[in-house]
């Protein structure tokens, strides 16, 4: 389907590009948001990425899927924007304490919205690369090979980052939930 619309756009049917906007805007936004952690910045980056994709569509050789190519642009733009803003968090892991999923329990009394709130907050507090790795692997359900292809990281980098990301999430959630308990009781 993507190939058909690529051909249409290259043949001068600019409105055919709307197909790609409609099809991939949510995933692109999700990825950009995980890096930038701000909805307005994420929107601007996705918009910029679409414009770059439109300009460079003629150079897309179809060696990978359009989505892979496009999401690579989104991530590059997001990381570039993060660098410009100087907000990049170091991915160096200073936390050594290991936390097991058995030690973390999201309280059943918390409503779905509250759980979502804490998970979003924890995602905001971990580094951009870790949040991106979690988003791609668990939310978007990409394989490690696909993540490697989209981000340009090596396979071992992806695995290490996922390991760190899980650890950071456990720690953030533990911290947030313990603070919550102190506030409640």
């Amino acid at each position, binding site marked *: 389907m993507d190939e058909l619309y690529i051909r249409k756009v290259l043949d001068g049917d*600019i409105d055919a590009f709307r197909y790609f*906007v409609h099809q991939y805007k*949510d995933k692109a936004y*999700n990825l950009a948001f995980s890096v930038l952690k701000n909805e307005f910045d994420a929107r601007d980056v996705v918009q910029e990425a*679409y414009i770059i994709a*439109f300009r460079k569509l003629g150079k897309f050789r179809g060696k990978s899927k359009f989505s892979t190519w496009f999401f690579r642009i989104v991530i590059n733009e997001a990381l570039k924007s993060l660098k410009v803003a100087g907000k990049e968090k170091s991915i160096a892991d200073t936390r050594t304490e290991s936390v097991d*999923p058995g030690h973390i329990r999201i309280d059943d009394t918390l409503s779905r919205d509250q759980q979502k709130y804490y*998970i979003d907050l924890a995602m905001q507090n971990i580094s951009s690369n870790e949040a991106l790795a979690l988003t791609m692997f668990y*939310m978007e359900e990409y394989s490690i090979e696909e993540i490697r292809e989209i981000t340009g990281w090596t396979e071992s980098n992806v695995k290490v980052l996922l390991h760190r990301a899980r650890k950071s999430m456990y720690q953030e959630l533990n911290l947030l939930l313990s603070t919550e308990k102190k506030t409640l009781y």
Partner: protein
Amino acid sequence: MEKNNNHDSFFRELLSDSNKEMPFSDFEDDLMTEIWLDHEKKYSVRKNIKLSWLFFILGMLSGIAIVVTLSFYRDNQPLAFISDNLFPGVIIFICLTIILFAEKLVKISFRRDNQL
């Protein structure tokens, strides 16, 4: 291995509700407007480059015509002053103009599309 699967299922469940969707309802229309503007800008730049080439060639031909005309009146009064003092200057000026304009036009014409 089992521990990893444990982690994976825990995280899949944990993050299943955290998928974000574009919250700006006008994003699609805004973006398509931007893309149309970008396309039109690129088209108008290309059109202007073509016009620049046309006027450059016309200017060059006019310059040659002026030089030929001036040289024709070279020995006649009252243009003797021009032929004796300004004629080499005019030729140098025209040559420089041609070289500078040609260089700019070639640069602009062969600039890659995404830089336009």
